[in-house]
């Protein structure tokens, strides 16, 4: 899977967790850009992404994400 494909899947997870069809992510999107992206949703995003890609993040990785691109890169590094 390449970066755009993963971004698309991550976008779907955001839509599902936040229950908002209008969310359009790009690599530089941060929590400041998405109203519903609070700490609770953040944890649920992590768990949903883990399930979808069958991967497991460390807490260090989770804390290091400052935007969606970093999240996507983390996923790529786990898949390869």
């Amino acid at each position, binding site marked *: 899977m390449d970066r755009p494909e993963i971004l698309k899947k991550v976008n779907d997870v955001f839509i599902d967790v936040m*229950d908002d069809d209008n969310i359009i992510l790009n690599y530089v999107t941060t*929590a*400041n850009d998405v*109203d519903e*992206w*609070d*700490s*609770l949703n*953040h*944890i*649920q995003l*992590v*768990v949903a992404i*883990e399930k979808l890609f069958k991967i497991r993040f460390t*807490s260090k990785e*989770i804390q290091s994400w400052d935007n969606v691109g970093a999240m996507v890169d983390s996923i790529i590094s786990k898949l390869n």
Partner: protein
Amino acid sequence: MLYYPEVMIEPVNYICERIEALNPIHSKKLRKSMEFFDDKYNELAGAFFEKYIQLLHAENKTLDYAIDCYLKMIADVNAETLEFLRTGKYSSSTFDEVNARVYASPETMAYYMHGLILSQFLWKHHYQVFDYFINTLPQYINTTKSYLEVGVGHGLYLSKSLEILDDEASFTVVDISETSITLAKHFTNNSRIAFNLRDIFDFDNEEKFDFITLGEVLEHVEDPLKLLSKLNSLLSENGTLFFTTPTNAPAIDHIYLFNNVEEIRKIVRQAGFQIIGERAFLSEEVSPEKAEKYKIAVLYAAFIKKADV
């Protein structure tokens, strides 16, 4: 970003702005709580922070220390929530484990209790439960000659009980953590209270208590039914027990998982009690469907008495 400064009192404003800078994602939760708070909140929170900041200063600490404590507690809660959503279980299952990890660790206990006391005025559902308690307790002024609080923690509930109940009433506290006992002692600063550093299961008293408070302790024991039965034996015939406990609330010292409110009510009945009044508050601003799907914590609070036989 501005937080409704026209309705927010100064310490709360300061706390929110600092948290916004240090943990912007978390500050979104606080912003939602702030929308709910009203004049009555401002009055209560104002009085609280005046007292609390004095206590901090007496220990050469500042509000920034308390905010750091709060954020450490939030980091713990986030890590535990992640694990809980992955496994469906709380990370600890025995009392010995959490005793060593939390109650007997002064450092952990200190940030936890300072964090928790701030949460009483930062989280809508914590404030709602506190508000329910102080609005209802006056009904028990005439019948309460002896008051027991188990798991006093920071001492906020105890301090309100002292204010509300009769000047002649006796006050007894049991807590297993030295840090909690010391903090509650400082916070209440009242020589009428008898403090017992003890596991509640090892506590006995000749006289029965007319009113018992048990705030967020039931989920900390391996067998909550045994704890309620124990408190039933410590309660006078017409006495009242006020307790709070959450469902689906992972934390570093939670052992017993209540999956829903009905499970709590069930052990209340099994322990020989009947419910006089109850409330259940969702810990996040989400729809009931989402709360169920994502196992969002509900904080349950009830006034109960011995069941009629």
